[in-house]
């Protein structure tokens, strides 16, 4: 009985991770401008990759009885570095004067960023 529950949970983790990666890819296709695309891609794919790695970690822990420290490190690493990558990409795009979506109503950074020519 426990076996079935654990296997179900592991499978659910991996499938949920794959689902979030699919959502990230769909967001990348369907979002109107670069900033909403980075929004979709960085958040959904981070969660998807983390859930998949967590599923793999749980699988090896359950099946072979050892905790793979590299997977734990990978989860922490993806969790911290992907949002920073998204931040850097969208800030570089904003500095390069990439246009916002035409239905955007608010640009909070308009006056705080002096859009530099020498990016």
């Amino acid at each position, binding site marked *: 009985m426990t076996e079935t529950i654990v296997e179900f949970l592991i499978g659910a983790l991996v499938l949920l991770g794959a689902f979030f990666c699919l959502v990230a890819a769909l967001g990348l296709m369907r979002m109107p401008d670069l900033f909403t695309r980075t929004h979709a891609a960085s958040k959904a794919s981070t969660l998807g990759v983390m859930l998949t790695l967590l599923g793999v970690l749980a699988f090896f822990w359950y099946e072979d009885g050892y905790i793979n420290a590299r997977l734990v*490190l990978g989860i922490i690493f993806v969790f911290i*570095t992907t949002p*920073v990558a998204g*931040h*850097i990409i969208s800030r570089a795009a904003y500095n390069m004067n990439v246009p916002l979506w035409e239905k955007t109503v608010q640009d909070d950074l308009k006056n705080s960023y002096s859009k530099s020519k020498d990016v």
Partner: protein
Amino acid sequence: MRTNDIILQTLAKSFMFVVIAFSFYVFLTGHHHPGGGFIGGLMTSAGIILLLLAFDWKVLKTVIPIDFKILVAIGLLTAVGSGMGSFLFGVPFLTHTFGYFDLPILGKTELATATIFDTGVYLVVVGITMTIIQSIGESE
């Protein structure tokens, strides 16, 4: 105008150590698992380059005051020396051996002389990668 990169700099400061520690792990497990001197050296230079992306060459030269060209020479000498060491025991060039030792914390550990050769490979890879990046990055 220099915009502030505080998010990237904080990430680089804290995560450079994680990358370099993992590269040492990969370097040391190269005997029994995937890894070794080449990939370890590449990952160490990736950690240094992460620091370089967030800061600049002046900061890197203060943090790591090494001329990377000298690192290449030290690495080659280490690798050749590990091959020449086999002459002391009257066996052919580059003959390697291993043995089991009781270390204080680690307990029974297998130590192989191939690790010395791998250290040479590691130093050469770090030195060459950083020299290439340096000579491309600093030529204005």
